[in-house]
């Protein structure tokens, strides 16, 4: 990562931790929910978010939802984290293959991308099932890099109530996880949605997260021109362009569904109401 961006993305971890834990705690109570449910994959995003959730409330519930494409090491790491969070009585092991295979046979497809998204959506359904049963919210684990790139499944891992680390880039999440004392095997592990075997985020994107975050930060936080980004980062032009075009192409994934206006006061276009409206 370029030193300039590294410097700008530096964090006062203690303050960020205090802030995010407090916000999560207040969000849960303002929503009149009793706690939070989270899916723990063994990756850094869900590990950090779960750490914050367990600090925010004793009422947490963890789901481990492996499929055939989940590396064994991820499941082991998730189980180790559950022990660390003293969550042995507050988790469920929920294998999704049977449900996913049913969708696959009913829809007559084995396309790995279609099935990959089914996996993410089945997990979403599982999370909401437990959340409603317990009176909890679904705590999402997406980070800013993934949200900006659109590197998530719409209504899958994107289908959550709140995104506590949604304003932290992947590289910041890794640093923060390290500061939180999470195991090195978690924060130094290559990021992967594990929707099919061997999938890793950086190989699929074709770009390292250090570079992704540099471009995202310079292009969208600092609103720099392509020329400035190229000269600041030294990255090849196609890489910079690809990152920017991924953000633009995925805008629909970050928005509520479009409503075609007829009336004088349409819901998305005219309404500006706070989330807690009462």
């Amino acid at each position, binding site marked *: 990562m370029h030193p300039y961006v590294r410097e*700008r*993305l*530096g*964090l*006062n971890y203690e*303050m*960020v931790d*205090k*802030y995010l834990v*407090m*916000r999560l705690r*207040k*969000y849960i109570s*303002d929503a009149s929910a009793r706690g939070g449910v989270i899916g723990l994959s063994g990756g850094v995003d869900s590990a950090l978010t779960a750490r914050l959730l367990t600090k925010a409330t004793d009422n947490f519930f963890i789901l481990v939802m492996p499929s055939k494409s989940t590396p064994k090491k991820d499941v082991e790491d998730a189980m180790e984290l559950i022990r660390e969070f003293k969550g042995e009585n507050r988790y469920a092991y929920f294998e999704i293959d049977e449900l996913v295979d049913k969708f696959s046979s009913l829809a007559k497809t084995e396309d790995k991308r279609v099935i990959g998204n089914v996996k993410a959506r089945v997990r979403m359904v599982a999370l909401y099932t437990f959340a409603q049963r317990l009176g909890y919210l679904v705590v999402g684990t997406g980070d800013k890099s993934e949200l900006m790139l659109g590197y998530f499944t719409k209504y899958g891992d994107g289908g959550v109530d709140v995104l506590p680390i949604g304003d932290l880039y992947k590289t910041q999440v890794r640093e923060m996880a390290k500061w939180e004392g999470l195991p090195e095997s978690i924060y130094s592990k290559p990021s992967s949605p594990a929707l099919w075997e061997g999938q890793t985020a950086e190989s699929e994107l074709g770009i390292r997260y250090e570079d992704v975050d540099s471009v995202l930060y310079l292009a969208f936080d600092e609103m720099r021109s392509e020329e400035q980004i190229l000269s600041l980062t030294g990255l090849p032009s196609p890489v910079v362009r690809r990152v920017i075009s991924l953000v633009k192409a995925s805008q629909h994934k970050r928005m509520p569904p479009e409503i075609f206006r007829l009336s004088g006061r349409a819901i998305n276009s005219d*309404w*500006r*109401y*706070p*989330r*807690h*409206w*009462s």
Partner: protein
Amino acid sequence: MVLRVELAQIEVKVGRVEENLKKHLEILETTSADCVVFPELSLTGYILKDLIYETFKEVEEAVSRVAETSRCAVLGGIKEISPGILRNSAAVILNGQVNFVPKFYLPTYGLFEERRYFQRGNPLRDLRVFDFNGFKFGVLICEDAWHPEPVEALARLGAEAVFIPSASPMRRLGKSLGIEDQWTSLIKAHSLMNGVWIVFSNLVGPQDEEFFWGGSMVSSPLGEIRAKGKIMEEDRVVAEIDVEDVRRSRFFSSYRDHVREFHQLLSELD
């Protein structure tokens, strides 16, 4: 002449005027200060968005309730000056009398959308200096402190202190809290340049996606932070502000040299 001021750094609920009023009254009943300064839109919450259209109606009644009990208080509310025309205002309560001071600069950028809802005040009509027990103060709201003229105008109208009820949301939390550094710089600079006390009372807590960071502070006319509220938590801070400090700072500054021609020039520029 010394005034004890309380900065009531409170968390309020968006749109719940009755609940918020109760909190105001509790603080006013228990304060040890002469005058209590609440944050901007403290009765209604700041991130009201379209809830403004229903919430504003409850403000005047709430302000009257405070005026029945408090001798000196500054609260944040909304004033309808004619049907459908709303102003983000500070209600200044002095010995049972209520005056509304409107905000002059309405932030409409980034997360802010005040011009969608509010009309700005006119400094020629609305800028006022109040007198409480011989202590002269003016009131400005949040964004007004991001410009040099409002504080200077109040100082030259005779204010010895400027109370700034604010609703500053957390931004730029990196290695330090960037927004706190910026406000501290502004507040110190206003006090130093004008030889006045600055009393910044900020909201705290979450409202929709935003989070108000607190950190209310009092700066002396020499630009020293004399009192400071907690960051990200509710707090009640009491400070004594003394006219003698105003006098001492102005003896040794060029505040007396008001070069009016700069303002003539400014009046012709965009």
